[in-house]
């Protein structure tokens, strides 16, 4: 029983990290229809900011954490201004290719100017303390991740439902042209979406670096892949869907790791994606996505 409870807690921790990542991807998609595969590099920017600060002798966590988050926000805003704004009205595939381009560029910039090898960043190692609750083992990091993901999701809901800018963003997600017609500045709405996405990526970077204890140029690739899968499960464009998708992905991954006989380990990814395919066959728009009119493509 303790083992099952322990693995449920592990799944919750996995899921909350995926939810945090997926929300960052979903908020940009909901406004721009852009799957920002460079989201992983925003995490990398946050992570390398920590490294650079340590190299400069500014290794206090109290300084490193806010500046890493700030760097991620600025990085996301810079991506929007330099790379995505010029292709805003181009087909969605152009935006996606631009995102891949930005991703490759940033990865290789870190590789060439810092190192291809991992660099240790142990300044946040204190967050890996183990907390025992009876027979259950929890890392402080897992508790923080769970808590922060919850707070961020609630904060995002409040922002989107109570603030003028949040309402404008929700409206833009529905009908961007109409939002512009009523006088709301498109650039501001989109930049805010990227800023929030950068904030979420920065927070995720703090957790990821605390757990890994090191950074490397392609460290953002796996997280963004997980975020993408979580968004597909939850329904692209739906923020609650991204959170639910992230949590579900965490449970699926941990469930398979624990339940699958070890000699079938090679089938792990196949089973994860088969389950996702099953979800999409029954709900093609994802668990919480909106139905889209497909015209003559409808069955």
């Amino acid at each position, binding site marked *: 029983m303790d083992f099952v409870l322990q693995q449920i807690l592990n799944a919750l921790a996995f899921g909350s990290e995926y939810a945090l990542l997926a929300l960052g991807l979903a908020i940009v998609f909901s406004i721009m229809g852009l799957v920002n595969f460079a989201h992983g590099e925003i995490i990398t920017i946050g992570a390398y900011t920590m490294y650079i600060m340590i190299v400069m002798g500014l290794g206090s966590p109290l300084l490193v954490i806010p500046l890493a988050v700030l760097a991620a926000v600025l990085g996301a805003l810079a991506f929007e201004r330099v790379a995505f704004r010029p292709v805003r009205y181009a087909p969605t595939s152009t935006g996606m290719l631009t995102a891949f381009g930005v991703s490759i560029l940033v990865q290789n910039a870190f590789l060439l100017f810092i190192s291809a*090898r991992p660099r*240790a960043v142990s300044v946040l*190692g204190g967050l890996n303390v183990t907390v025992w609750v009876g027979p259950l083992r929890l890392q402080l990091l897992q508790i923080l991740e769970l808590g922060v993901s919850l707070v961020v999701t609630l904060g995002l809901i409040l922002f989107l439902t109570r603030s003028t800018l949040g309402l404008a963003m929700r409206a833009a997600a529905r009908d961007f042209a109409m939002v512009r017609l009523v006088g709301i500045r498109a650039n501001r709405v989109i930049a805010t979406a990227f800023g929030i996405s950068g904030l979420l990526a920065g927070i995720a970077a703090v957790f990821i670096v605390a757990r890994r204890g*090191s950074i490397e140029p392609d460290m953002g690739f796996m997280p963004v892949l997980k975020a993408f899968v979580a968004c597909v499960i939850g329904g692209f464009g739906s923020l609650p869907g991204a959170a639910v998708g992230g949590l579900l992905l965490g449970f699926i991954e941990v469930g398979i790791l624990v339940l699958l006989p*070890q000699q079938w*380990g*090679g089938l792990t990814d196949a089973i994860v994606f088969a389950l996702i395919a099953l979800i999409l066959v029954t709900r093609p728009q994802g668990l919480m996505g909106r139905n889209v009119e497909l015209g003559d493509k409808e069955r």
Partner: protein
Amino acid sequence: MQSRNWLLSAAALALCALATPAGAENTLVIGLAAPLTGSYAPYNEARGVQCEADRINKANEGITVKVLMEDSRSDPQLTLSLAQKYLDDKAVVVHGTPFPDSLIPMAKMAEGYNALVYSAQITQVEMHESGLTNFLANVVPDDVGASALASAVYAKGARSVVLMTSDSAGSWSAKTPEWFGEAFEKLGGKVVGRLNHTIGTSDWSPQVANIQAMSPQPDAVDICSVVPDVAILARQLTAAGYKGLVVGCDGFDDPSLEATVGDNDVLSRMMFNTHAAMVGTPAGEFIESCKADGYKVNGIFDALGADMLRVLVDGAKDAGTTTDGAKILAAIQARDTFDLVTGGKISFKKRLTWPERNVPVIGFADGKRVLVQNIFPDFIPHSK
């Protein structure tokens, strides 16, 4: 006047025609489609090869080394395109992204040019089983490394082990732990469990919970993966109260391992097999001196690249040619031993495509790397 110019031109051409073959005969052309960027960039040997080539050329050994080098961007297709270009430019040895999906087709391609593929660092057993007749690896295959590690772990007192396997990096991550287990059981140890993982894992909680639930706890956990994954695993296992060893393959051998683990107690229970000990050894000295000379060397793979070049130059001297790949290969395989830049000796005489060389097993004391063992194992689980 015109006829005088014509005569001068003809004389110049004749001189060139005479000079070119003699120069080419003494020049060993090596083509490196090196992964300078992309996922495999940490594993390239390019700068070490360049550093050693410049030293050989300066020493005037009678053979000049010319290194053709471009970035393969870790892409197998680009690696092959570059190899084709190098072969057309008369390279007699080519190498690229050190994985079978690049090197097997590259070797097939090089066959038609009487050229060979010599890899400084590839350990995958597939390379030695694909029937290639023009391939050499500078290091032992994974099963040999795993067997050497097993004997060191057994000697340290471990009698039970959990194997962690992954399909993420082919036989390297999937089979190497199994070969470790085979060698460990042959010594009298026991494999008490197997767990899966994916390379890139940063939260090992599910696997840690599995190990935690085992009674008694295994004496060792063996895994073939990379830094930071293995460092995080060791940390998380220790945080969960595990007191056994965390051991593994050459993927552990990264300069950032110690800082990423960040705890001398955890490090003291880690051990890994590698290809050359780097601290206080000729390999380490080579790296330091290359750095001092301004080469941006990465570490162990650069040292292995220098070894590769040393063997090639000595093999070409024995063969009496720098342009006939088959003769150079035959000379390398016929020679008793080669002295390495990284210290020690190797021989291809018995195994032909891979060398018999000692496998260093590294452990830690007070947070510093120490050489635990340096042997060629008696038992080889897989390779011929």
